[in-house]
């Protein structure tokens, strides 16, 4: 009678998967933390133009304006003319100021004076619409703007 049993046969032991949940949980927490659920539904087509000489937008002090053609499912109702979207709904040029003011009040108080207006405008839009928006921004004294773009270069792709 030996104290140490001999191993039964030469089988390969199964891989221990006890730590698998831990690994998966770690990944899970990572993605939970970095996830930003989209809070605005896009009502307009939004293919941003390309640029490479860009700076980063500081998100905590930005209000967004979307502009472009209405998305295909809204085109029956709103036509194909370029439109402006702030928050969740279409906005008239004349109402941009008020809508922006509302969006700005949701920011942290100490950042409200440093607000950046981020323009997410579809590449196919006419510049006239953008000029109208800029004119309203000037009247509202919201002078810091940023044209949001996607990485790339118009020259290389053409």
């Amino acid at each position, binding site marked *: 009678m030996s104290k140490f049993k001999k191993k039964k046969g030469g089988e390969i032991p199964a891989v221990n*998967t006890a730590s*698998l*949940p831990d690994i*998966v*949980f770690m*990944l*899970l927490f990572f*993605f*939970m933390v*970095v*996830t*930003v*659920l*989209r809070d605005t539904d896009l009502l307009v087509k939004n293919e941003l*133009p*390309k*640029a*490479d*000489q*860009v*700076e*980063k*937008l500081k*998100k905590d002090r*930005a209000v967004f304006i979307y502009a472009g053609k209405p998305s295909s499912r809204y085109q029956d109702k709103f036509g194909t003319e370029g439109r402006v979207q702030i928050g969740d709904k279409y906005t008239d040029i004349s109402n941009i100021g008020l809508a922006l003011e509302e969006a700005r009040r949701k920011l942290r108080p100490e950042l409200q004076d440093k607000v*950046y207006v*981020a*323009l997410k*405008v*579809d*590449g*196919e*839009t*006419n*510049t*006239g619409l*953008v*000029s109208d928006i*800029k*004119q309203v*921004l*000037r*009247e509202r*004294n*919201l*002078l*810091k*703007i*940023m*044209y*949001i*773009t996607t*990485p790339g*270069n*118009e*020259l290389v792709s053409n």
Partner: protein
Amino acid sequence: MGRRATPEVNAGSMADIAFLLLIFFLVTTTIEKDKGIARQLPPIEPPTEEPPLIKQKNLFIVNVNKDDQLLVEDELMQLKDLKQAAIEFLDNGGAPAGSPEYCSYCKGKRSPSSSDNPDKAVISVQNDRLTSYKMYIAVQNELVAAYNHLRDRESERLYGWKFTDVSRAINEGTFQGNEEAAKEKLEVIQKLFPLKLSEAEPKTKAQ
């Protein structure tokens, strides 16, 4: 001694549950990093004030028409040539040596018919209301590229690093070393080549 040991909770399905959640978050995640071209709009001036006079030779007019064609200083131009043309204009340094406006660091042609110095030089982008936004951004991008090229050149000459690299590192918080000193140096470079891009309001048909 009739105590039964509490049975262990089976944790075998924990991994499955976690996987399910993981996949959900993987799918919904959009790691968005918005980047773009920042601009400062001019404040609205009181109508009584006369706009400052800019000499014709210090003005570089880029005109984009409704068919997205470029007219630069009254000449038709392709987008790919715009950066070089803008660099030549900004870097010209046409003011004669000895005058207070003389540009000592310019390496351009010093043609008297082009800009006096980078501080005086103004690039004016005029666009039609029907210009596509894509083209508008492409033009802005090329002009910013021209400025960045010149700023990189000067910062390499003075400090041995690239303006764009350092300003990006500072923005992203990855800059190693004395950030305050670097910021001051960035400002010096910015003063050498100040970004002077005028965006005229598109001309209305009535004018």
